[in-house]
């Protein structure tokens, strides 16, 4: 289906068109929202369509796999795109209030849409190197967003962020190269098919080569010990956009780990990488939450929580090493990724709203949020408890699935860590709550209207609760999606079924050319 490209293409077009008009106030905002809502609608339509008709494939340029670049909308990709677009819409609506004229003139919305296109791109692509490109598109958008306004702090942190991600990009290219050398293809479907048949020393070599990609994706996902970039950079991202960052960037990395290390690399002994991830995930969960515990700024606390929560996703990926629980673990991971997209964005957005309502962002100076902005307080409570995994919410469902998968598989230590982390998560969310929403309101803080910020966040809160309540449809879909990942035969078959659409242009062309150096083109 050719339209699979739309979630990438429309944001890109939007970005370019908006760049050309350069910050045309309301018109720009209207165009943004219209385009994002359209793509969101399309994404949900695609999700339903794929659920009914199986994976949809578009090969760019009408070429054929494995050399044409494939775009595959399987269940996993669809749900990722749909959720990311919802978060995107919410964030866009949120930024209508927070964005400044200067930011708008310096390409706020174009860069935002480039980032959004990159995110969707990363979800949809079926080619390893194209994934690199997608990541770079997403990253460049994020660089632009991060530095927009160019305050002192932004410049410093963006510099670090770019530098660290440049290492990641380099290693990504190296990883692609090593995979190409050892497997001979970059197409994910073909990689999956080929690696499944690899055994012995060749398989071992592929496993070693994938370690480079493991570093890359673990870094993108902000897993221990590679999360350096995250806690420093997120607090300086403009309000609103930090919701998108929080929801998307690390999740794309986690998605990459899931897609590559579970679905694509299936050679004999491929569990090695997953086991490494499992070990990393334990540290990530625990150290991330410890980092959060001692922060005194809402954004910093939430940023560290992102790290900690990434641990759960990486754990889910790592658990997939155990064949008995692979599908359950993958379903849990997908759910957890979605949950985090929603809840982390929501928390950042609500944090921003609370900052506005209370008038400061330093936790120690806050207070009285429950009286100043009861709506925000209520939403924050929902999101915070969802983050900590309390029912009934997507967070509980996600944690439950992970714990179930882990205990079924006998991975007691990691589940213990997960549970301890969950406790500390609650501890630190309660800290925010008791400092920002309880206590007496600060005097002399500049309070600004916050309702326009709370409303978009409420959509996300509703989603996390809805996922907890309507868990069965979610589970049915997720189980099917997970099956598509652990057993990619449907994916592979869909990719290779797509025919070569390009005609032979000139069958004789090859025989008419001069032997040496041609004077002109054919």
């Amino acid at each position, binding site marked *: 289906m050719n339209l699979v490209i739309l979630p990438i293409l429309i944001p890109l077009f939007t970005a370019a068109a908006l760049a050309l008009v350069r910050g045309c106030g309301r018109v720009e905002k209207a165009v943004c929202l219209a385009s994002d809502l359209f793509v969101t609608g399309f994404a949900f339509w695609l999700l339903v369509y794929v659920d009914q008709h199986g994976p949809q494939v578009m090969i760019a340029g009408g070429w054929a796999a494995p050399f044409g670049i494939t775009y595959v909308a399987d269940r996993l990709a669809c749900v990722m795109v749909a959720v990311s677009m919802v978060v995107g819409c919410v964030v866009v609506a949120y930024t209508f209030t927070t964005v400044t004229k200067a930011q708008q003139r310096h390409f706020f919305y174009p860069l935002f849409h480039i980032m959004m296109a990159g995110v969707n791109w990363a979800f949809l692509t079926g080619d390893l190197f194209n994934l*690199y490109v997608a990541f770079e598109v997403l990253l460049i958008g994020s660089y632009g967003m991060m530095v927009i306004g160019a305050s002192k702090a932004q410049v410093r942190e963006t510099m670090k962020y770019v*530098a660290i991600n440049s290492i990641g*990009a*380099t290693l990504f290219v190296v990883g692609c190269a090593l995979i*190409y050398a050892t497997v001979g293809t970059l197409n994910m479907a073909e990689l999956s098919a080929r690696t499944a048949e690899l055994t012995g020393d060749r398989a071992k070599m592929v496993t070693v080569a994938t370690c480079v990609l493991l570093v890359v994706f673990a870094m993108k996902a902000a897993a221990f010990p590679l999360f350096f970039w995250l806690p420093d950079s997120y*607090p300086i991202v403009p309000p609103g956009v930090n919701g998108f960052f929080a929801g998307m960037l690390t999740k794309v990395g986690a998605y990459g780990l899931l897609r590559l290390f579970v679905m694509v690399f299936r050679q004999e002994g491929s569990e090695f990488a997953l086991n490494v991830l499992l070990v990393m995930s334990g540290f990530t969960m625990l150290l991330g939450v410890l980092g959060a515990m001692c922060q005194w700024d809402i954004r910093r606390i939430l940023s560290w929580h992102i790290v900690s929560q990434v641990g759960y996703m990486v754990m889910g990926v790592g658990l997939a090493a155990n064949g008995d629980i692979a599908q359950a673990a993958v379903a849990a991971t997908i759910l957890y990724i979605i949950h985090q997209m929603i809840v982390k964005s929501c928390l950042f957005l609500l944090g921003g709203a609370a900052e506005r309502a209370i008038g400061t962002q330093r936790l120690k100076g806050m207070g009285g949020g429950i009286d100043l902005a009861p709506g925000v307080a209520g939403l924050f409570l929902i999101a915070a408890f969802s983050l900590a995994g309390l029912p009934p919410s997507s967070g509980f469902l996600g944690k439950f699935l992970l714990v179930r998968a882990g205990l079924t598989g006998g991975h007691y230590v990691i589940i213990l860590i997960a549970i301890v982390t969950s406790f500390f998560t609650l501890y630190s969310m309660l800290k925010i709550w008791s400092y920002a929403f309880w206590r007496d309101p600060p005097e002399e803080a500049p309070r600004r209207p916050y309702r326009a910020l709370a409303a978009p966040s409420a959509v996300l809160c509703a989603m996390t609760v809805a996922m907890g309540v309507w868990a069965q449809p979610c589970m049915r879909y997720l189980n099917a999606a997970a099956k598509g990942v652990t057993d990619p035969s449907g994916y592979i078959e869909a990719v290779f079924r797509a025919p070569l659409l390009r005609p032979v242009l000139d069958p004789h062309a090859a025989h008419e050319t001069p032997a*040496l150096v041609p004077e002109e083109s054919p």
Partner: protein
Amino acid sequence: MELPMAIVIGALFAAGTYLMLRPSLIRIVLGLALYTNGANLTMMTCGGYESSRSAPFLYDASGQARLMDPLPPVIILTAIVISFSVWALLLILCYRVYLDWGTDDPEALASIELHEVEEESAATQS
């Protein structure tokens, strides 16, 4: 050709690392440039090499000519362009960092507490 290439790649990454660990923003930028070159050469090397093959131009009507794999150059080209663009951005960011912070030593940069800056930026934003 793999052995000399591997040595060069190793050297590029080692030197790039060494530069990035030095306390100077420009050296970090230079180190990343070396990394980029290293990655590109890795891709090239991984495409395989036979000295008898010729460039991937399809002028040989007989189809007998043994041509190089066109994929590594394509990938390198994309990678070069992307990393060059990002590198340019990083370069300019370093310049802005020096301009704003008055130091090009990342260590000194790190020692300045962010919350001091945050308060300042909060003041300017509102």
